[in-house]
Protein backbone atom coordinates (compact mmCIF):
# COMPACT_ATOMS: atom_id res chain seq x y z
CA UNK A 1 0.00 0.00 0.00
CA UNK A 2 1.07 3.57 -0.63
CA UNK A 3 -0.16 6.63 1.23
CA UNK A 4 -1.82 9.27 -0.92
CA UNK A 5 -0.23 12.50 -2.07
CA UNK A 6 -2.02 15.58 -0.71
CA UNK A 7 0.35 18.24 -1.97
CA UNK A 8 -1.26 21.10 -3.81
CA UNK A 9 -0.69 24.75 -4.66
CA UNK A 10 -1.40 27.50 -2.16
CA UNK A 11 -3.87 29.06 -4.61
CA UNK A 12 -5.89 25.86 -5.04
CA UNK A 13 -5.94 25.15 -1.32
CA UNK A 14 -6.99 28.61 -0.15
CA UNK A 15 -9.33 28.99 -3.15
CA UNK A 16 -11.67 26.51 -1.46
CA UNK A 17 -12.52 29.06 1.25
CA UNK A 18 -15.63 31.10 0.52
CA UNK A 19 -17.60 33.92 2.15
CA UNK A 20 -18.90 33.21 5.63
CA UNK A 21 -16.41 30.44 6.41
CA UNK A 22 -15.16 29.74 9.92
CA UNK A 23 -11.39 29.32 10.01
CA UNK A 24 -9.07 28.15 12.76
CA UNK A 25 -5.60 29.62 12.45
CA UNK A 26 -2.63 28.16 14.31
CA UNK A 27 0.06 30.17 16.07
CA UNK A 28 0.81 31.95 19.30
CA UNK A 29 2.31 35.29 18.35
CA UNK A 30 4.65 34.73 15.42
CA UNK A 31 5.71 31.09 15.96
CA UNK A 32 3.33 28.68 14.30
CA UNK A 33 1.28 31.32 12.49
CA UNK A 34 0.74 30.30 8.84
CA UNK A 35 1.50 33.74 7.41
CA UNK A 36 1.71 32.58 3.79
CA UNK A 37 -1.72 30.89 3.93
CA UNK A 38 -3.17 34.04 5.55
CA UNK A 39 -1.63 36.26 2.89
CA UNK A 40 -3.18 34.08 0.19
CA UNK A 41 -6.52 34.36 1.99
CA UNK A 42 -6.15 38.14 1.80
CA UNK A 43 -5.42 37.90 -1.95
CA UNK A 44 -8.47 35.68 -2.54
CA UNK A 45 -10.62 38.00 -0.45
CA UNK A 46 -13.55 36.00 0.99
CA UNK A 47 -15.61 38.09 3.43
CA UNK A 48 -17.66 37.61 6.60
CA UNK A 49 -15.12 35.23 8.05
CA UNK A 50 -15.12 33.89 11.60
CA UNK A 51 -11.50 33.58 12.73
CA UNK A 52 -10.52 31.37 15.66
CA UNK A 53 -7.00 32.11 16.82
CA UNK A 54 -5.16 32.55 20.11
CA UNK A 55 -4.33 36.16 19.27
CA UNK A 56 -4.73 38.67 16.44
CA UNK A 57 -0.98 38.89 15.73
CA UNK A 58 0.60 42.34 15.74
CA UNK A 59 -0.19 45.31 13.56
CA UNK A 60 1.05 44.71 10.03
CA UNK A 61 1.20 40.94 10.09
CA UNK A 62 -0.98 37.83 9.88
CA UNK A 63 -4.54 38.29 11.12
CA UNK A 64 -4.07 42.05 10.97
CA UNK A 65 -4.06 41.90 7.14
CA UNK A 66 -7.48 40.20 7.22
CA UNK A 67 -8.82 42.80 9.64
CA UNK A 68 -7.46 45.68 7.58
CA UNK A 69 -9.03 44.17 4.46
CA UNK A 70 -12.44 44.00 6.14
CA UNK A 71 -12.74 40.21 5.78
CA UNK A 72 -13.45 39.37 9.42
CA UNK A 73 -16.79 39.75 11.20
CA UNK A 74 -16.15 37.56 14.23
CA UNK A 75 -13.06 36.67 16.20
CA UNK A 76 -12.85 33.94 18.85
CA UNK A 77 -9.63 34.52 20.74
CA UNK A 78 -7.85 34.80 24.09
CA UNK A 79 -5.84 38.03 23.85
CA UNK A 80 -5.60 40.82 21.27
CA UNK A 81 -3.48 43.26 23.25
CA UNK A 82 -0.75 43.50 20.62
CA UNK A 83 -3.12 44.53 17.83
CA UNK A 84 -4.51 48.03 18.24
CA UNK A 85 -6.62 47.64 15.09
CA UNK A 86 -8.39 44.58 16.48
CA UNK A 87 -9.19 46.44 19.70
CA UNK A 88 -10.45 49.48 17.78
CA UNK A 89 -12.65 47.36 15.47
CA UNK A 90 -14.06 45.60 18.54
CA UNK A 91 -14.70 48.86 20.39
CA UNK A 92 -16.37 50.35 17.28
CA UNK A 93 -18.60 47.29 16.91
CA UNK A 94 -17.23 46.44 13.45
CA UNK A 95 -16.18 42.96 14.55
CA UNK A 96 -17.54 40.76 17.32
CA UNK A 97 -14.89 39.42 19.64
CA UNK A 98 -15.57 36.40 21.83
CA UNK A 99 -12.90 36.04 24.50
CA UNK A 100 -12.07 32.65 25.92
CA UNK A 101 -9.58 31.58 28.58
CA UNK A 102 -6.52 30.31 26.73
CA UNK A 103 -6.43 26.71 27.92
CA UNK A 104 -10.20 26.50 27.60
CA UNK A 105 -9.98 27.61 23.98
CA UNK A 106 -7.45 24.82 23.47
CA UNK A 107 -9.76 22.27 25.12
CA UNK A 108 -12.85 23.46 23.20
CA UNK A 109 -10.92 22.94 19.97
CA UNK A 110 -9.55 19.60 21.13
CA UNK A 111 -13.07 18.52 22.08
CA UNK A 112 -14.38 19.55 18.67
CA UNK A 113 -11.69 17.53 16.98
CA UNK A 114 -12.24 14.55 19.26
CA UNK A 115 -15.95 14.32 18.51
CA UNK A 116 -17.08 15.59 21.90
CA UNK A 117 -19.87 18.11 22.46
CA UNK A 118 -17.99 20.21 24.97
CA UNK A 119 -16.14 20.25 28.24
CA UNK A 120 -17.00 21.02 31.87
CA UNK A 121 -14.76 23.39 33.79
CA UNK A 122 -14.73 25.76 36.74
CA UNK A 123 -12.45 28.20 34.91
CA UNK A 124 -14.16 31.56 34.63
CA UNK A 125 -16.78 30.90 37.29
CA UNK A 126 -18.05 34.16 38.83
CA UNK A 127 -16.39 36.18 36.07
CA UNK A 128 -17.71 37.90 32.95
CA UNK A 129 -16.46 35.01 30.83
CA UNK A 130 -18.54 32.48 32.71
CA UNK A 131 -21.66 34.35 33.80
CA UNK A 132 -23.73 33.89 30.63
CA UNK A 133 -22.87 30.25 30.07
CA UNK A 134 -24.79 27.15 31.10
CA UNK A 135 -23.84 25.88 34.56
CA UNK A 136 -24.22 22.30 35.76
CA UNK A 137 -23.47 20.54 39.02
CA UNK A 138 -21.17 17.52 38.85
CA UNK A 139 -20.26 15.65 42.04
CA UNK A 140 -21.52 18.60 44.03
CA UNK A 141 -19.38 21.18 42.25
CA UNK A 142 -20.60 23.86 39.90
CA UNK A 143 -19.12 23.68 36.43
CA UNK A 144 -19.47 25.77 33.28
CA UNK A 145 -20.44 24.05 30.04
CA UNK A 146 -17.94 25.12 27.39
CA UNK A 147 -19.12 23.98 24.00
CA UNK A 148 -16.80 22.27 21.55
CA UNK A 149 -15.44 24.32 18.66
CA UNK A 150 -15.27 23.13 15.09
CA UNK A 151 -14.54 25.10 11.96
CA UNK A 152 -14.94 24.82 8.21
CA UNK A 153 -11.19 25.22 7.71
CA UNK A 154 -7.99 25.08 9.72
CA UNK A 155 -4.79 26.77 8.56
CA UNK A 156 -1.75 25.08 10.03
CA UNK A 157 1.97 25.87 9.99
CA UNK A 158 4.37 22.92 10.15
CA UNK A 159 8.13 22.79 10.18
CA UNK A 160 8.19 19.50 8.29
CA UNK A 161 5.57 17.52 6.40
CA UNK A 162 5.49 14.61 4.04
CA UNK A 163 3.17 14.29 1.03
CA UNK A 164 0.57 12.42 3.06
CA UNK A 165 0.30 15.25 5.60
CA UNK A 166 2.19 13.81 8.53
CA UNK A 167 3.38 16.91 10.34
CA UNK A 168 6.18 17.90 12.67
CA UNK A 169 6.27 21.20 14.53
CA UNK A 170 9.24 22.90 16.10
CA UNK A 171 9.78 24.59 19.50
CA UNK A 172 6.99 26.99 20.53
CA UNK A 173 5.55 26.98 17.01
CA UNK A 174 3.49 23.94 18.02
CA UNK A 175 0.94 25.69 20.33
CA UNK A 176 -2.59 25.43 18.85
CA UNK A 177 -1.57 23.81 15.56
CA UNK A 178 -1.98 20.10 16.43
CA UNK A 179 -5.33 20.83 18.13
CA UNK A 180 -6.76 22.84 15.25
CA UNK A 181 -5.48 20.23 12.79
CA UNK A 182 -8.05 17.86 14.31
CA UNK A 183 -11.01 20.22 14.50
CA UNK A 184 -11.89 21.44 11.01
CA UNK A 185 -13.72 19.95 8.04
CA UNK A 186 -10.90 20.92 5.69
CA UNK A 187 -7.37 21.20 7.04
CA UNK A 188 -4.68 23.01 5.05
CA UNK A 189 -1.09 22.76 6.25
CA UNK A 190 1.78 24.89 5.00
CA UNK A 191 5.21 23.44 5.60
CA UNK A 192 8.70 24.88 5.58
CA UNK A 193 10.11 21.58 4.34
CA UNK A 194 8.37 18.87 2.34
CA UNK A 195 10.10 15.52 2.80
CA UNK A 196 9.56 12.16 1.06
CA UNK A 197 7.24 9.60 2.66
CA UNK A 198 9.18 7.62 5.22
CA UNK A 199 11.59 10.36 6.13
CA UNK A 200 9.71 11.51 9.23
CA UNK A 201 10.29 9.08 12.08
CA UNK A 202 6.87 7.55 12.93
CA UNK A 203 7.41 8.07 16.65
CA UNK A 204 8.12 11.77 16.28
CA UNK A 205 5.18 12.76 14.04
CA UNK A 206 3.06 15.28 15.96
CA UNK A 207 -0.01 15.27 13.70
CA UNK A 208 -0.83 12.07 11.77
CA UNK A 209 -1.60 12.50 8.10
CA UNK A 210 -5.26 11.38 8.15
CA UNK A 211 -6.18 14.69 9.84
CA UNK A 212 -4.75 16.72 6.97
CA UNK A 213 -6.46 17.41 3.62
CA UNK A 214 -3.99 19.59 1.77
CA UNK A 215 -0.24 20.15 2.06
CA UNK A 216 1.39 23.28 0.67
CA UNK A 217 5.17 23.51 0.50
CA UNK A 218 6.44 27.03 1.05
CA UNK A 219 8.95 28.12 -1.58
CA UNK A 220 10.21 30.81 0.74
CA UNK A 221 9.25 32.38 4.03
CA UNK A 222 8.04 35.96 4.07
CA UNK A 223 9.72 38.42 6.40
CA UNK A 224 6.84 37.97 8.85
CA UNK A 225 8.35 34.68 10.01
CA UNK A 226 11.61 36.31 11.03
CA UNK A 227 12.83 37.46 14.42
CA UNK A 228 11.37 40.85 15.29
CA UNK A 229 13.62 43.51 16.73
CA UNK A 230 11.61 44.95 19.63
Amino acid at each position, binding site marked *: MILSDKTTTISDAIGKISDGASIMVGG*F*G*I*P*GTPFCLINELVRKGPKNLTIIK*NDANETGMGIDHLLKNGQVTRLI*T*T*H*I*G*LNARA*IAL*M*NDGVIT*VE*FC*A*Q*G*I*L*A*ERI*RAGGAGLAGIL*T*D*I*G*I*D*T*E*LGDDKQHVTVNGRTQIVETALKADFALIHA*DQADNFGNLGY*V*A*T*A*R*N*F*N*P*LMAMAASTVIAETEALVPLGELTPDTI*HTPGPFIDHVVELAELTKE*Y*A*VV*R*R
Partner: protein
Amino acid sequence: MSDARKRMVARAARDIQPGMTVNLGIGLPTQVVEHLPRDMQVCLHSENGITGIGPSLTYEQADRNLIDAGGAYVSPLPGTAFFDSAVSFALVRGGRLDLTMLGAFQIAENGDLANWKIPGKFSPGAGGGMELAQKARRVVVMTTHTDRKGAPKIMQRCTLPLTAKACVNRIFTDMAVIDVTDTGLVLREVAEGLSTTTVQAATGANLIIPDETLPRF
Protein backbone atom coordinates in the same frame (compact mmCIF):
# COMPACT_ATOMS: atom_id res chain seq x y z
CA MET B 1 12.03 51.59 37.36
CA SER B 2 12.04 53.10 40.84
CA ASP B 3 14.42 51.75 43.44
CA ALA B 4 11.49 50.53 45.54
CA ARG B 5 10.10 48.55 42.61
CA LYS B 6 13.51 46.99 41.95
CA ARG B 7 13.68 45.91 45.58
CA MET B 8 10.16 44.48 45.31
CA VAL B 9 11.20 42.37 42.32
CA ALA B 10 14.32 41.16 44.13
CA ARG B 11 12.28 40.37 47.24
CA ALA B 12 9.68 38.44 45.24
CA ALA B 13 12.44 36.32 43.70
CA ARG B 14 13.31 35.04 47.18
CA ASP B 15 9.88 33.34 47.34
CA ILE B 16 10.84 30.97 44.55
CA GLN B 17 12.07 27.77 46.16
CA PRO B 18 14.34 25.13 44.62
CA GLY B 19 12.42 22.38 42.85
CA MET B 20 9.41 24.54 41.99
CA THR B 21 7.66 24.76 38.62
CA VAL B 22 6.89 28.45 38.17
CA ASN B 23 5.02 30.66 35.70
CA LEU B 24 6.02 34.32 35.60
CA GLY B 25 3.38 36.65 34.14
CA ILE B 26 4.04 39.40 31.64
CA GLY B 27 5.47 42.66 32.99
CA LEU B 28 7.06 43.01 36.41
CA PRO B 29 6.95 39.26 37.22
CA THR B 30 9.09 38.45 34.18
CA GLN B 31 11.89 40.53 35.71
CA VAL B 32 12.03 38.23 38.74
CA VAL B 33 14.10 35.80 36.70
CA GLU B 34 17.01 38.26 36.68
CA HIS B 35 17.30 37.75 40.46
CA LEU B 36 17.40 33.95 40.49
CA PRO B 37 20.81 32.33 41.05
CA ARG B 38 22.12 30.80 37.83
CA ASP B 39 22.65 27.44 39.53
CA MET B 40 19.18 27.31 41.12
CA GLN B 41 17.10 24.19 40.40
CA VAL B 42 13.85 25.71 39.16
CA CYS B 43 11.62 24.99 36.15
CA LEU B 44 10.01 27.98 34.44
CA HIS B 45 6.84 27.34 32.43
CA SER B 46 5.22 29.53 29.83
CA GLU B 47 1.68 29.21 28.47
CA ASN B 48 2.72 28.97 24.83
CA GLY B 49 4.13 25.50 25.42
CA ILE B 50 7.52 25.30 27.10
CA THR B 51 8.99 24.09 30.38
CA GLY B 52 12.61 24.68 31.26
CA ILE B 53 12.94 28.25 29.97
CA GLY B 54 16.52 29.48 29.86
CA PRO B 55 17.88 33.03 29.73
CA SER B 56 16.46 35.56 27.26
CA LEU B 57 18.34 36.05 24.02
CA THR B 58 19.31 39.13 22.04
CA TYR B 59 17.98 39.83 18.55
CA GLU B 60 21.14 38.42 17.02
CA GLN B 61 21.00 35.19 19.05
CA ALA B 62 17.24 34.59 18.86
CA ASP B 63 15.52 31.52 17.43
CA ARG B 64 12.42 32.78 15.57
CA ASN B 65 10.41 29.80 16.81
CA LEU B 66 11.31 30.05 20.48
CA ILE B 67 9.52 32.67 22.55
CA ASP B 68 7.75 32.88 25.90
CA ALA B 69 4.12 33.93 26.21
CA GLY B 70 5.16 37.57 26.44
CA GLY B 71 6.91 37.36 23.09
CA ALA B 72 10.45 37.50 24.49
CA TYR B 73 13.01 35.37 22.71
CA VAL B 74 14.26 32.76 25.16
CA SER B 75 16.79 29.95 25.13
CA PRO B 76 16.36 26.26 25.93
CA LEU B 77 18.11 24.51 28.81
CA PRO B 78 19.30 20.92 29.01
CA GLY B 79 15.94 19.23 29.69
CA THR B 80 13.64 21.79 28.06
CA ALA B 81 10.34 20.40 26.71
CA PHE B 82 7.95 21.78 24.08
CA PHE B 83 4.25 20.88 23.93
CA ASP B 84 0.90 22.05 22.62
CA SER B 85 -1.52 24.49 24.28
CA ALA B 86 -3.76 21.76 25.71
CA VAL B 87 -0.81 20.11 27.46
CA SER B 88 0.42 23.49 28.63
CA PHE B 89 -2.82 24.22 30.45
CA ALA B 90 -3.23 20.66 31.68
CA LEU B 91 -0.06 21.41 33.61
CA VAL B 92 -1.72 24.53 35.04
CA ARG B 93 -5.22 23.20 35.77
CA GLY B 94 -3.96 19.79 36.81
CA GLY B 95 -2.09 21.23 39.79
CA ARG B 96 1.48 20.84 38.56
CA LEU B 97 2.25 24.56 38.70
CA ASP B 98 3.68 25.34 42.14
CA LEU B 99 3.68 29.10 41.84
CA THR B 100 2.57 31.88 39.53
CA MET B 101 3.48 35.54 39.82
CA LEU B 102 0.99 37.88 38.18
CA GLY B 103 0.38 41.59 37.73
CA ALA B 104 -2.73 43.24 39.15
CA PHE B 105 -5.07 46.19 38.72
CA GLN B 106 -6.88 45.51 42.00
CA ILE B 107 -6.72 42.95 44.79
CA ALA B 108 -9.47 42.52 47.37
CA GLU B 109 -8.91 41.63 51.02
CA ASN B 110 -10.39 38.17 50.39
CA GLY B 111 -7.87 37.51 47.59
CA ASP B 112 -10.08 38.42 44.62
CA LEU B 113 -7.93 39.48 41.68
CA ALA B 114 -8.75 41.88 38.83
CA ASN B 115 -6.04 42.14 36.19
CA TRP B 116 -7.59 41.73 32.77
CA LYS B 117 -10.11 44.40 31.98
CA ILE B 118 -10.83 48.07 32.58
CA PRO B 119 -14.26 48.52 30.99
CA GLY B 120 -14.24 51.12 28.24
CA LYS B 121 -10.48 51.61 28.44
CA PHE B 122 -8.57 48.35 28.30
CA SER B 123 -10.04 45.09 27.16
CA PRO B 124 -7.50 42.92 25.36
CA GLY B 125 -8.68 39.58 26.83
CA ALA B 126 -7.32 37.55 29.71
CA GLY B 127 -5.06 35.16 27.79
CA GLY B 128 -4.11 32.41 30.21
CA GLY B 129 -4.49 34.62 33.27
CA MET B 130 -7.72 33.15 34.59
CA GLU B 131 -6.38 29.63 34.66
CA LEU B 132 -3.10 30.70 36.24
CA ALA B 133 -4.93 32.68 38.92
CA GLN B 134 -7.47 29.96 39.60
CA LYS B 135 -5.31 26.86 39.45
CA ALA B 136 -1.67 27.53 40.33
CA ARG B 137 -1.00 26.06 43.76
CA ARG B 138 0.26 29.40 44.99
CA VAL B 139 -0.64 32.77 43.47
CA VAL B 140 1.31 35.89 44.25
CA VAL B 141 0.78 39.25 42.64
CA MET B 142 3.30 42.01 42.05
CA THR B 143 2.07 45.53 41.66
CA THR B 144 2.62 49.10 42.61
CA HIS B 145 0.82 49.72 45.89
CA THR B 146 -1.30 52.50 44.39
CA ASP B 147 -2.34 53.44 40.86
CA ARG B 148 -0.96 56.42 38.93
CA LYS B 149 -3.38 58.75 40.67
CA GLY B 150 -2.39 57.44 44.09
CA ALA B 151 -5.58 55.44 44.64
CA PRO B 152 -5.20 52.13 46.49
CA LYS B 153 -5.03 48.95 44.41
CA ILE B 154 -5.58 46.81 47.50
CA MET B 155 -9.20 47.27 48.61
CA GLN B 156 -12.14 45.73 50.41
CA ARG B 157 -13.77 44.67 47.15
CA CYS B 158 -12.58 44.92 43.58
CA THR B 159 -14.60 47.30 41.40
CA LEU B 160 -13.16 45.99 38.11
CA PRO B 161 -14.23 42.71 36.44
CA LEU B 162 -12.60 39.79 38.26
CA THR B 163 -9.95 37.49 36.85
CA ALA B 164 -10.65 34.96 39.61
CA LYS B 165 -12.20 34.95 43.05
CA ALA B 166 -10.26 34.45 46.29
CA CYS B 167 -7.14 33.28 44.48
CA VAL B 168 -4.30 35.48 45.76
CA ASN B 169 -2.03 34.17 48.53
CA ARG B 170 0.53 36.98 48.75
CA ILE B 171 0.92 40.52 47.47
CA PHE B 172 4.27 42.15 46.72
CA THR B 173 4.19 45.92 46.26
CA ASP B 174 6.75 48.69 46.25
CA MET B 175 5.63 49.41 49.83
CA ALA B 176 4.99 46.07 51.49
CA VAL B 177 4.67 42.30 51.50
CA ILE B 178 1.12 41.34 52.49
CA ASP B 179 -0.39 37.90 52.97
CA VAL B 180 -4.04 37.12 52.27
CA THR B 181 -5.27 34.99 55.18
CA ASP B 182 -8.59 33.66 56.44
CA THR B 183 -8.67 36.48 58.99
CA GLY B 184 -7.72 39.22 56.54
CA LEU B 185 -4.68 40.95 55.10
CA VAL B 186 -1.57 40.53 57.24
CA LEU B 187 1.35 42.92 56.82
CA ARG B 188 4.56 40.85 56.72
CA GLU B 189 7.30 43.18 55.52
CA VAL B 190 7.68 46.90 54.87
CA ALA B 191 9.87 48.70 52.33
CA GLU B 192 12.90 50.59 53.63
CA GLY B 193 12.04 54.04 54.91
CA LEU B 194 8.28 53.55 55.25
CA SER B 195 6.20 53.28 58.42
CA THR B 196 3.37 50.80 58.87
CA THR B 197 1.09 53.83 59.21
CA THR B 198 2.09 55.03 55.74
CA VAL B 199 1.43 51.59 54.27
CA GLN B 200 -1.98 51.37 55.93
CA ALA B 201 -2.89 54.86 54.69
CA ALA B 202 -2.14 53.81 51.10
CA THR B 203 -4.24 50.64 51.43
CA GLY B 204 -8.00 50.53 50.84
CA ALA B 205 -8.58 47.68 53.29
CA ASN B 206 -7.67 46.99 56.89
CA LEU B 207 -4.19 45.55 57.45
CA ILE B 208 -3.51 43.26 60.39
CA ILE B 209 -0.18 44.52 61.74
CA PRO B 210 1.71 42.03 63.94
CA ASP B 211 3.24 43.35 67.18
CA GLU B 212 6.78 42.31 66.34
CA THR B 213 9.22 44.41 64.30
CA LEU B 214 8.60 43.67 60.64
CA PRO B 215 11.45 42.81 58.27
CA ARG B 216 12.50 45.47 55.72
CA PHE B 217 13.21 44.97 52.05
